[in-house]
């Protein structure tokens, strides 16, 4: 593997849009070329080397042979690993919005927290967040009919609102709580929520949502039988019937 380490030179105030922080972009370039890539900070075009220290192995290699390590606080850096197809990105701190946006393959791992729109419209690969994720993880852009279509998102902390909105495929797993409206308009993906959430599966037409904690269930859900999944008992619901939905909602029995 070719290892490349990037770290901010100083704390970042105005957020940086850095869609080029991806194995696909870096793999064929030398370190010097990488340093010369542009990122945007507000209306200013900056070089990577103006804002970050870049060290590591020389290339070129293939994307799948590239391991990118982001050290420090990237919470004000947006669009990390956008569209990546292969390789790995490891972030020791937190990341800004749209990390793993439109990701197609490879692995993005975030030790801190992720901001809103993590894995937006993701198609493949995997994202692991050790901390919390913001709103709209695995969702689609404004007005779009399809959010995440494939791949895996694992959030070991809590997730914000609109988790997996317009989900069309793939799996999302949240160890903690999710906010309002997880799995809204789900059309075929699967969401597991270890904790509680509010109004899951609004307008869900296909797919499944499993909630281990408490959840307020919408009036468009028909209560069905108690089922056992992985040794746990769940109350099964079908819906959302406002959309003639055939989605499945499971809430741990006795919790809601």
């Amino acid at each position, binding site marked *: 593997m070719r290892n490349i380490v990037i770290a901010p030179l100083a704390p970042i*105030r*105005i*957020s940086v*849009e850095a869609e080029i922080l991806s194995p696909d972009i870096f793999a064929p370039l030398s370190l010097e070329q990488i340093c010369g890539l542009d990122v*945007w*900070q*507000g*209306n*200013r075009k900056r070089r990577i080397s103006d804002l970050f220290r870049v060290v590591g192995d020389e290339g070129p290699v293939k994307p799948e042979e590239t391991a990118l390590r982001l050290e420090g606080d990237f919470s*004000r850096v947006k669009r990390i690993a956008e569209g990546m197809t292969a390789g790995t990105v490891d972030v020791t701190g937190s990341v800004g*919005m749209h990390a793993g946006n439109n990701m197609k393959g490879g692995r993005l791992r975030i030790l801190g927290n992720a901001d*809103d*729109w993590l894995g937006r419209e993701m198609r493949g690969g995997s994202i692991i967040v050790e901390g919390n994720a913001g*709103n*709209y993880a695995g969702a689609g*852009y*404004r*007005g779009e009919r399809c959010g995440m279509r494939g791949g895996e998102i694992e959030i070991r902390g809590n997730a914000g609102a609109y988790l997996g909105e317009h989900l069309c495929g793939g799996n999302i797993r949240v160890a903690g709580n999710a906010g*309002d*409206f997880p799995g*809204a308009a789900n059309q075929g993906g699967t969401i597991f929520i270890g904790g509680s959430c509010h*109004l899951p599966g*609004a*307008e869900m037409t296909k797919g499944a949502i499993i909630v281990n904690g408490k959840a*307020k269930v*919408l*009036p*468009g*859900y*028909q209560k069905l039988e108690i089922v056992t999944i992985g040794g746990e008992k769940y109350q099964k619901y079908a819906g*959302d*019937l*406002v959309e003639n939905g055939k989605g499945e909602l499971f809430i741990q029995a006795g919790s809601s």
Partner: protein
Amino acid sequence: MMVEDAICSFCGCLCDDINVEVEENNVKRVRHACRLGSSKIMGHERIRSPMVRKDGELKEVSYQQAYERAAEILLAASKPLLYGWASTVCEAQKKGILLAEEVGGVLDSTATVCHGPSVIGIEEKGLPGATLGQVKNRADTIVFWGCNPAEAHPRHSLRYSSNACGRFTPEGRSAKRIIVVDVRETRTSKNADKQVIIQPGTDYEVISALRMLVAGKGDVVPDEVGGVAKKELASLAQMLLAAKFGAVFFGLGITHSRGRYKNIDNALSLVADLNSHTKFVIMPMRGHYNVGGIGQVLAWSSGYPMSVDFTRQAPYFNPGETAACDLLAKADTDAALIIAADPASNFPRKIVEELAKMPIIQIDPYENPTTLLADVVIPSAIAGVEAEGTAYRMDGLALRMRKLVNSSYPSDEEILDGILECVRSLRSAMRMQGGA
């Protein structure tokens, strides 16, 4: 002199039947307007002169000096916010968009603290609407959901909705059924045929229940939703289905509550569903008289109706990321131009505290709390009273605002032009310096 059929520049009703008596260039009397409109047209104490803050004090300067200082602030910023725009005319809004492009800023309107969630809802579902005259002529059933027009849009009922008479509604109020859904009793609900009081933050669930009942799937609906008995909701659903022409008007009661845009999204679906059975339309009750206008102008200029980020020279839109409150809450902006708005009063306090940390340019006819924080204050003519121009009514209808009196103040459009010119000359001076 009497100016007839003047257009009121207070709320989104844009009443265009106002008669204004003008004597010696002063408004003497306003006829037909409501209390809100009269107060606006009669006018208040004005800012007298442009001012620039020096050593903590606002000092009077010339317009040109104010424009130059404003241009310096905007060009020094890497992410300036250009905010407001709802209480000025489209001609000024167009200039504002050009300025935002020139300085690479983010342009946002007061919609983001009003009906911004409605816009996001519309992006999910579309807007089955109508002009207000259609409602006046046809509606026999009117729902006010989370809005209180008796206080916020006082002439709405007479001109367009509850009390209006039209071709198929000759009996006016007596033949209409008025329904109010809210978390409290209001002046509007007290005059309704049916009021439904729901628990705060349960709009989404209540709408879902109504969609189920309208579709004949009431058997699945629990006995109580949002604090309202199923029987009560069923009778509401029956009233909706019995309409020959129904209209839903909604306000900030639904956009500002838990669920935000999802509430609107679901209400839009309810109306779409109802159209399988009868005729229904829905419309947001817009507050500022031309908040509709900035949405329209911005949409045809940039493709998006609010919260447009021009920092990378190409429009990018994402409320939640690019709206004024988002940027301020995350300290992700470094200068602000505020026009025809008062964020110091209308934003959450914590966000105002962030705003105060940045250089602020204010363009407004009146002193307000934002003035207390501003570094450059530029007084303007009152659009719709002292300056003419275009405004869009809450139903999207464009009207031309009349000029009622002359003013020595420059219009918003002229001020923005002045700033734009200074931005251009300052930038070319900077380029020449950089090149030398």
